[in-house]
């Protein structure tokens, strides 16, 4: 459960439809996300969860429907603009920059906050140098928060899977986002790593007050840490509500246990 009181609706999606050629990934999906909330999106494989996330942060552009974020309305999001407005995300299969160390990877998360032009950086003069050191300090807070001090200067490619997931969370946090989209942050983790990641997600929501939109398969995790859950199946929303409501909903059980679908 989120530590802070859940506030007003900050992000909402109305009747969004997305199709690749003939394949309808999403059809008329609408749901909203409140400030400081931990909002889960669940559903069987291929239900359109990742596509929904990609629509929210502008990687995919829906053919139909509206996205409303902090009062402003959009036909579709531009990923660059989404980042600038404070929507950050992690990827299902890790999208870290293999050629850089952990520290550099997280520092790239802060690029939107650094304003010196390349000439100042080349000469490493006053403002550029100060800016670099200030942001290094902020990144160190995140490294301390995620307890990855001991691998600060190791190239990311050499880290075990669990740590890479944490570094990716760190990079998303570096942008000090208002909304954090997590695409199966606990996929492929053992019990211990899962518990750690749950703790980190809750700490982020509690400590930084970031609204969290979480895609997750592990029902145990979803039930434990999310405030409200939206369930997608074949690109359609079939349930929306608190974890206990959703758990009891017959449609959800059918979707997961695979009852024959109507056309």
């Amino acid at each position, binding site marked *: 459960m989120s530590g802070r009181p859940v506030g007003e609706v900050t992000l909402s999606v109305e009747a969004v439809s997305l199709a690749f050629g003939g394949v309808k990934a999403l059809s008329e999906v609408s749901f909203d996300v409140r400030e400081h909330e931990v909002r889960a999106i669940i559903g069987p494989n291929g239900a359109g969860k990742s596509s929904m996330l990609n629509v929210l942060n502008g990687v995919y552009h829906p053919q139909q429907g509206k996205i409303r974020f902090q009062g402003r309305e959009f036909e579709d999001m531009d990923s660059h603009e989404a980042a600038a407005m404070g929507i950050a995300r992690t990827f299902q299969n890790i999208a870290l920059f293999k050629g850089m160390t952990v520290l550099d990877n997280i520092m790239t998360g802060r690029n939107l906050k650094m304003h010196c032009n390349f000439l100042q950086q080349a000469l490493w003069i006053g403002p550029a140098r100060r800016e670099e050191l200030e942001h290094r*300090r902020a990144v*160190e807070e995140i*490294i301390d928060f995620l307890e990855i*001090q001991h691998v*600060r200067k190791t190239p990311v490619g050499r880290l075990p899977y669990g740590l890479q997931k944490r570094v990716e969370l760190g990079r998303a946090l570096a942008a000090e986002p208002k909304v954090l989209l997590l695409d199966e942050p606990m996929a492929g983790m053992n019990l211990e790593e899962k518990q750690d990641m749950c703790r980190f997600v809750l*700490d982020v929501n*509690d*400590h930084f007050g970031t609204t969290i939109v979480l895609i997750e398969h592990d029902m145990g995790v979803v039930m434990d840490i999310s405030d409200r859950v939206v369930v997608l199946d074949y690109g359609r929303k079939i349930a929306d509500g608190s974890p206990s409501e959703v758990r009891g909903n017959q449609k959800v059980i059918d979707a997961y246990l695979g009852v024959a679908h109507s056309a």
Partner: protein
Amino acid sequence: MATDIGKLDTFPKLLMHHALVRGARPAIREKDLGIWQTWTWKEFADEVRFVACGLAGLGLARGEHFALVGDNRPRFYATMAAAQCLGAIPVPLYQDAVATEMAFPIQNASIEFAFAEDQEQVDKLLEILPQCPTLRKICFDDPKGLRHYAQPELVPYDRLLEAGRENYRRDPAFLETEIAKGSGGDTAAMFFTSGTTGVPKGVVHTHASLLVPARTAAELEGLGENDVILAYLPPAWIGQNIFSCAQAFVTGYCIACPEASETVMADMREIGPTYYFAPPRVLENLLTQVSIRIQDLWWGGRWAYGYFMAVANRVGGKILEGKPVPIGERLLYYLGELFLYGPLRNVLGMSRVKVGYTAGEAIGPDLFRFYRSIGINLKQLYGSTETAVFVCIQPDGQVKPDTVGPAVRGVELKFTPERELLIRSPGLFKEYYRNAQATSEAKDAEGWFHTGDAGFVDPDGHLKIIDRVKDVGGLADGTLFAPKYLENKLKFFPHIREAVCFGDRRDRVCAFINIDPDAVGNWAEKRNMPYSGYTDLASRDEVYELVRECIERVNADLAGEPEIANSQIHRFLILHKELDADDGELTRTRKVRRRIVGEKYDSLVAALYSASRSVHVEAQIKYEDGRSGIYSADLKIRDAKVFAPAAGKRAA
């Protein structure tokens, strides 16, 4: 140079003096957020002033006790000094102790105020709150995870500091008068002995009894404000506190706090301390790490390492002490210095060590010689909690492997007929807190302190410790039986981590062995011997062979020393589990509790002295994730070859 004790007779006064005289010099550094955060003496003194005013605001008064639980952190030492400013008595407790172990000291000293480092320590204190009604306020430093703790007792450090800043601004004179009230005779701190026997006792130390020996030792070694020491041992142990508090306040040198206990090696290398203290156990682990990593060198590297270490063994110590050495050897040594000893010291972080001490228990001579031979000025020291550590120190010129050096200026030594050592010195403790009976037993009328250690002074005036009086015994045939001496010889081998010898009032010496999982694991992997865990490794015949070889080399050594020749080890077994402080088998500073181990495994001891080749053992084991199960197995017992006394060849 350290000024005379004169009017600067308490910790706070010294602190304020440093803030004036060397305000800009670094007082404390802590590796945090990727760099070494630094507090100068002035900043440190200001922080102490504000915390003191804050604690006064909470109601901490002169003479009251103040518990501190946590690792080496600047705020830990600041809060300790702040309490001393108000005349309160800080009581540091072991941070890795379990909650129940903390209850006794708090009840014993009816402590009302406590300082806890982080959520882990706060949870322990909250757990024992019901048994300690007197505990009113708990200040905590690291707020991580504590955002939703609503208990009224909890006071975050920052709020304490703010309140203190406010109080100090309103009434600065208050604190100056409080500090001025303090005098050398007041109680400065109380340390609970980890004690190898019975209930822990609160050793009360005055400002004088801590500062005088600290200053004497500092002057002996010429320590000054440019020195740096790494504080990595538990601050509740006087062995660490005397170096990171008493001597720091006396000389004004800088204390460096590592980032976390796992990164001590790396932090040691970064900070490069000039003043170093390590109990034998730490030096053993270091040597084991070195030998494991050297094993992985290619054969040429290993050969070179062996060759140059032999050179160092022969002449290293002499060169360190400036004694004459043949020119050929000296050249070889300098070659070794460039390629091996210099880099080895550098990787261990000891390149800048001016003086290093080892104390707490007797150290094996080979282990001691290893460090001196590669050019580290390691010296032996004798002392205890009750004597504020400094009793005997080996001066630079006269360092011998098996003595602890002459007495320090102002310390008198005397022996009882049973060879028990008695000590009188300005560093003696005032008393055991609320335990007059124990105090009278330990300190007799003329002020002599009964150390409980047996020993004698050798011809050059160096004190030589044999063992604990209780443990020193004799074999059935009367020869001296000093278990510690045998155990240290065994522990020099990287494969053996701990050993417990039995032989008092018996005809033969037998031993329990604890293998070192890393070293033996590495040894097993080299012979691609699969093993599942410690217990499985410990039960292997090949491992028994390995241990038997070590024991036989020790026996060969012992054969060469006539007076203890027949205390060679006849039979041994490898314990199925590692001796652990949590099971009460070791003290918090990893010293073996011989009596408890003897009683707990009496069936195994009996088996050792019978003729049986194995013994059945049934024990409760706690697995890593908290579940516990019963472990039952037959421990093998093996004999070790014993050498005829005189004829024993001199061990290399």
